[in-house]
């Protein structure tokens, strides 16, 4: 049984430092998510144009609903694509 110190890691194991996620809407005091502003909404979409989940963006439930509502409205008005590749 290899002792602990015998184990040599080829590269240092990078433990992901746990960054405290926060809801950017509460912090910035934003009350309304505008569906007309595509640039701002793009921060919440991934490359395929899909809405990022809360566990990635860290937004609170109340604002995640507002963001998804705004994104769906923007998609209806062709300000944002429904599906695309390498959007950013």
């Amino acid at each position, binding site marked *: 049984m290899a002792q602990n110190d015998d184990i040599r890691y080829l590269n240092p194991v990078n433990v992901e430092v746990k960054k405290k996620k926060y809801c950017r809407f509460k912090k*910035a005091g934003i009350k309304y998510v*505008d569906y*007309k502003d595509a*640039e701002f909404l793009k921060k919440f979409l991934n490359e395929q144009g899909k809405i990022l989940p809360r566990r990635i963006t860290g937004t609170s439930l109340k604002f995640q609903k507002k963001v998804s509502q705004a994104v769906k*409205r923007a998609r209806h*008005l*062709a*300000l944002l694509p*429904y599906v695309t590749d390498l959007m950013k």
Partner: protein
Amino acid sequence: MLKQYETVFIATPVLSDVQMKEAVAKYTGLITDNGGKIVCQEDWGLKKLAYPIQKKTTGFYTLIEFQAEPEFIAKFETQFKRDERILRFQTVSMDKHAIAYAERRRAKLSGATQPAEAPAEAPAAE
């Protein structure tokens, strides 16, 4: 009781400027005739669509913010449905946060030296 709404609609790029203005005037006129009040009206001009609508890739975007009777909205939207010059339309009711945001956005747009089409990069920030 007058509620506040905002409508964004896309007109076909095939229209000439005159027809474009006349289409917009038709809808603004419709609102004022039925006891509504136009708060603000913006033309975003010819913009590229994120995906083709009815085989067209660009469209004339127009935003109208207005106050109207709730019953009027159904009539207003049937007008849009019937008008074949309009590719797509969307009417949204505005709560107090939306109204406050819209005023701030207008102040920023008129305040900005060059009339930036898209609002500044942190538009929704309080």
